[in-house]
């Protein structure tokens, strides 16, 4: 907020978007089609500047995917979704010795996954993303860490509607953890499932228009320290 003059209103827009996106997700705990930025800004202050509706709930949940080898996948489906790249990175545990603005652990994990996936220009080649959003501001952090925009730009893209489901770069079309829930330790599975549903055209009411081809998902762990990234592509 200090480095790039990010407004609380723009952070709150992430929570509003995700809780609205979650309408239509069968597992959603906190979907709300009518939530407004004012609702978020007027919610109980927990640890300023973080308020209650900036936060995802801890949830019980599980996610499962079936991985299949290329040799036999055609026995099961004509339109598989491919895992093109994975990456992971851990930064120093001493987070009080680090730049707290930019999540380098995400950018390093993303570079690893993009390299494996042959993605040279993530902003052009990635159609949508499911960054880890346990708090609304973390979605913004992680968008920048995934190299989907310049530092300080994620709140502006959010304000301009670019990250809406029908925008140029949909972010958390699932409703994310803010809207669906935060099943801690199962969240990367939750993100990967949404990539599968969107890329196979099975996301129902949550479907991104225009047949997205490439999606990226990301999860976060420990104290602002660890990230995993997965790139998936329509078959």
């Amino acid at each position, binding site marked *: 907020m*200090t480095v790039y003059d990010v407004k609380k209103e723009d952070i709150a827009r992430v929570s509003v978007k995700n809780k609205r996106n979650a309408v239509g997700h*069968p*597992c959603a705990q906190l979907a709300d089609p009518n939530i407004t930025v004012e609702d978020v800004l007027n919610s*109980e*202050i*927990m*640890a*300023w*500047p*973080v308020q209650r509706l900036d936060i995802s709930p801890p949830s*019980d*949940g599980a996610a499962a995917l*079936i991985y299949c080898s290329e040799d036999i996948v055609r*026995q*099961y*489906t*004509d339109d598989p979704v491919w895992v093109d790249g994975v990456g992971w990175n851990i930064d*120093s*545990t*001493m987070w*009080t*010795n*680090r*730049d*707290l603005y930019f999540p380098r652990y995400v950018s390093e994990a993303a570079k690893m996954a993009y390299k494996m996936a042959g993605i040279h220009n993530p902003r052009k080649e990635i159609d949508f993303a499911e960054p880890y959003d346990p708090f609304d501001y973390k979605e913004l952090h992680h968008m920048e860490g995934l190299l989907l925009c310049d530092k300080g730009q994620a709140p502006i893209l959010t304000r301009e509607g670019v990250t809406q489901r029908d925008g140029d770069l949909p972010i958390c079309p699932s409703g994310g953890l803010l809207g669906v829930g935060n099943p801690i330790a199962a969240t990367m599975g939750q993100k990967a499932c949404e990539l599968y549903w969107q890329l196979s055209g099975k996301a129902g009411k949550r479907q991104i228009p225009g047949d997205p081809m490439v999606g990226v998902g990301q999860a976060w762990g420990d104290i602002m320290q660890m990230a995993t990234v997965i790139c998936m592509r329509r078959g």
Partner: protein
Amino acid sequence: MEKSNKKEITYPKNPAGTHLRSSDIRNKVITHSWWEPEIQYAWSIGPAMSKFLHGLKEGKILGIHCHKCKRLITPPRSFCEYCYGPTDTWVELKDTGTINTYSISYLDPNANRIEDPILIGVISIDGAYPKPMGFMHYFGEMSKDEIKIGMRVKAVWKPENEREGAITDIKYFKPYGGD
């Protein structure tokens, strides 16, 4: 849908699962067991952190160099996590610094709601580098309306006879007018 000779994969029709309520546990609708763990543990903090805590007992904030990476690290550790080389040359740092980030918490350490917020954050300690380099602590002698990022602060120590070699030997950091 067209009939294909693909192998069938079934999936749960109700992915949201079944809601479980606390009354289900109370009324023994579901099978459950109850266990109260009594877990005790000891944690060895290692030579570098031990020396740091001894320093606090003496009213000093200590740092240690990684000469290779040109870092003067606090809290200190025995090796540099960027080059994995050993650290050496201890330095006594000033007990002043700059607020790098903060929060005004209406939750106490046990997540109970409190009226009077706790001011907490990360202090970049003077002399340590590269910035930001420091640790987390409380802030005092300032209101929630006065605290801001970039504010200069100084440690307020417990009296010497009350110090025990803990990070809480510093009570909090207060506003500091000096340079």
